[in-house]
């Protein structure tokens, strides 16, 4: 090969390098505002953090659903919900003043707050942001929270008044919506999203990363961690790999991938309780799934704790209803003593008797149904597999089937589905869309087509309640109805697991109960601005 090497080796190897450099040098993905020198100058370890979260949020505009619970680091709402789920004022000077009839909420804005671009926060900005969320053209998911809001107006430069069509006891929790400058409410790219938060955007690559730096003009306390980079890594495996190779300091990881990190002292595993439930949607129309005896048998016979220990690898807790025990609306009426024997007996009594193949039958109908789950979601797949195994013990045949959401949607009326949702903040949101008959088969709302007049009345009462006690009572009825009709079989609240480099930062371990949505906002970095540097 001598001649070959002599003559071609140099150009070839330089071609390899050149090919890569070509890719590198012409890399247009850095934003022009991306400040490389700054990055180099402040590379003092602990003041910077690199986080791998799940997929990129669909939008960084709060109007389009970003930071729905007011925990955005870039944008801030009038109020936010603390770790104890109590609202606390942020851009509002204090919590909203509610009129006696419960129809007007008046908010006075905090003084001296400026947006990242230097504009001062005014009432007009608040009004514009809420109006954009209400505009059906925007298709804002926040609109669902604001169904009661009739109008919003600026009383003066510093005062905003919300007028409701009907009383809504939980309205304060919806004023968490992040406020944008009036002229920029339709921003789509994160670079255009200008907030008032402790961090501002300092570089963004679509689908890859978002870099934040501390906002020097922040109205509140300056964060100790001055730079944070969020990597959007959809793939659990890739996230684990990048954490293992030391590229990132913290990451969201499924319980199955924790293995090595749990034993490794260099990492701290943060496990958060959640209101993020998984449940089986039992369609009303299904011959088997609609049968009360079958539902009751599953409700009583499925061992939630075994499911948590197995399918969830311990990262979860049993769930019996949509409202988590931490919430004031929670009622223990939904809870059940797991007893497979009693469940079987109930089936026998209802006429479901064991057939030749071990599957029960009633009037020629086999106790068998298909359980759909979104393909690629390992966790829901595991839940489905565990349900299959446990149901088989009861004599019920469950056939899991992984499908795309497109394929799932048209079959929701007939086939059971592993559903995930839930939030600890707002009982209305975690029940009304799922169980009110008017929402049957609207998008992914009320997927089983559950229809009960008592339930509808209770949901409406809960929504309209002004007094805390009134609301708690209404949701007690809701949960009673759920326990009675069992339209869904609730299985578990999934715990969210995060891995973070240990002994570098402090203050991230707060007793937070997370909602279904997590990633950029949730996790240990939920309160990133109040982290402190360890030993510092």
């Amino acid at each position: 090969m001598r001649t070959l090497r002599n003559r071609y080796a140099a150009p070839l190897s330089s071609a390899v390098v050149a090919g890569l450099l070509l890719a590198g040098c012409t890399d247009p993905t850095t934003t022009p505002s991306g400040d490389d020198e700054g990055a180099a100058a402040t590379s003092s370890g602990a003041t910077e953090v690199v986080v791998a979260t799940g997929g990129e949020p669909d939008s960084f505009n709060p109007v389009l659903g970003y930071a729905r619970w007011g925990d955005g680091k870039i944008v801030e709402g009038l109020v936010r919900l603390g770790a104890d789920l109590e609202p606390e004022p942020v851009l509002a000077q204090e919590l909203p003043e509610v009129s006696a009839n419960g129809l007007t909420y008046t908010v006075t804005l905090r003084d001296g707050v400026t947006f990242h671009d230097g504009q001062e926060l005014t009432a007009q900005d608040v009004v514009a942001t809420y109006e954009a969320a209400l505009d059906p053209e925007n298709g804002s998911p926040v609109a669902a929270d604001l169904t009661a809001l009739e109008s919003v107006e600026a009383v003066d430069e510093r005062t905003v008044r919300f007028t409701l069509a009907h009383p809504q006891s939980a309205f304060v929790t919806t004023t968490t919506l992040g406020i944008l400058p009036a002229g920029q409410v339709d921003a789509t790219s994160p670079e255009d999203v200008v907030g008032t938060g402790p961090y501002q955007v300092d570089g963004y690559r679509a689908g890859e990363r978002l870099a934040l730096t501390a906002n020097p003009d922040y109205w509140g306390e300056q964060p100790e961690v001055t730079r944070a980079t969020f990597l959007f890594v959809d793939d659990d495996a890739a996230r684990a790999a990048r954490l293992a190779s030391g590229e990132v300091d913290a990451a969201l990881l499924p319980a199955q991938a924790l293995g090595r990190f749990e034993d490794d002292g260099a990492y701290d595993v943060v496990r958060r309780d959640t209101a993020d439930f998984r449940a089986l949607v039992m369609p009303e129309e299904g011959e088997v799934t609609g049968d009360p005896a079958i539902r009751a048998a599953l409700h009583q016979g499925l061992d939630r704790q075994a499911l948590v220990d197995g399918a969830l690898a311990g990262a979860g807790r049993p769930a019996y209803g949509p409202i988590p025990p931490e919430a004031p609306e929670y009622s223990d009426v939904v809870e059940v003593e797991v007893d497979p024997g009693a469940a079987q007996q109930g089936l026998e009594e209802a006429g479901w008797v064991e057939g030749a193949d071990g599957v029960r039958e009633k009037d020629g109908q086999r106790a068998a149904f298909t359980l759909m789950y979104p393909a690629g979601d390992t966790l829901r797949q595991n839940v489905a597999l565990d349900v299959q195994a446990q149901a088989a013990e009861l004599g019920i045949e469950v056939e899991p089937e992984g499908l795309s959401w497109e394929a799932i949607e048209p079959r929701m009326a007939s086939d059971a589905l592993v559903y995930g949702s839930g939030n600890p903040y707002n009982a209305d949101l975690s029940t009304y869309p799922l169980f009110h008959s008017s929402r049957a088969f609207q998008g992914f709302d009320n997927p089983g087509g559950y229809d009960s007049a008592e339930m509808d009345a209770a949901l409406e009462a809960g929504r309209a309640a002004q007094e805390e006690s009134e609301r708690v009572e209404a949701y007690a009825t809701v949960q009673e109805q759920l326990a009675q009709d069992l339209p869904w079989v609730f299985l578990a609240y999934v715990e969210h697991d995060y891995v973070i480099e240990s002994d570098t930062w402090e203050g991230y371990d707060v007793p937070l109960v997370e909602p279904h949505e997590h990633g950029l906002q949730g996790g240990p970095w939920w309160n990133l601005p109040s982290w402190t540097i360890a030993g510092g």
Partner: protein
Amino acid sequence: MTAEGWREVAGARSRPWAGTRRVVRRAGSGPWWIALGGLVVLVLLLGAGAADQRADFSQAFLPPSAEHPFGTDQAGRDLLTRSLAGARVSLLVGLVAALVSSVVGVVVGGLAGSLASRGRGVVDGALMRLVDAVNALPHLVLGIVIVALLGPSLGSVILSVALTHWTTTARLVRAELLALQGAGFVEAAVGAGAGRWWVLSRHLLAHVLGRVVLATVLMVPHAIMHESALSFLGLGLPDDQASLGTIIEQSRTAVLAGHWWPAVLPGLLLVALSLAVFALGERLRPASRGRS
């Protein structure tokens, strides 16, 4: 031949080309090919009854042992059983896709070949441009598009593989037909008064079919590869019809947690399966090699 006086020339074995003859003779023979071919049968037989395994999460991620030679997966299912079932799915998808694409290829190639020989060069030209066109498509990307738009299912995976791979067969059949038109034995039959049907049924069919069978078998590993790639990308078969690609895809996270077996061992089985089918094709090759 007189036995005495003959000798081998000294140093002949060290000539640069000395090995070429041996290699040609050895190609396609040898017991290990047969052993690998047996693997295919084994997979088909053993994979048959292994589909319905219940999850048992207490047995999750057991490393390979005597009881579970491939270990267990995240749901505590025996990976060997699952891999064999997955291999059967992969093999069936590969076979059906290869068959479908061969049928399309035979129809197009047969049409082009017989029309070309009757002087209908325009149709032949058009069909061959079509073949060029399909060949010019990036197979996996097209497969991704088809599966994405039709929704992931057995049918769309087979379709996406078949639609992109029939061109090889079409070219082969056409070329074979054209070559056979000029083959001495066909001309001899024509000269002896044979008609088209006689030549087609007595001579051409057997030759072309032999080639097509070979091409089909050799296409199976390729189709398996495509299927597993699609499944791996999350665009292939759903988890409950797990093929080897799906199993490997589901094990990606586990690998990082130190559970290497769910990804590595089914992958090895996939390699062995492809090699086995390929070897089977190589065994068929001399049998279907008619001329030359």
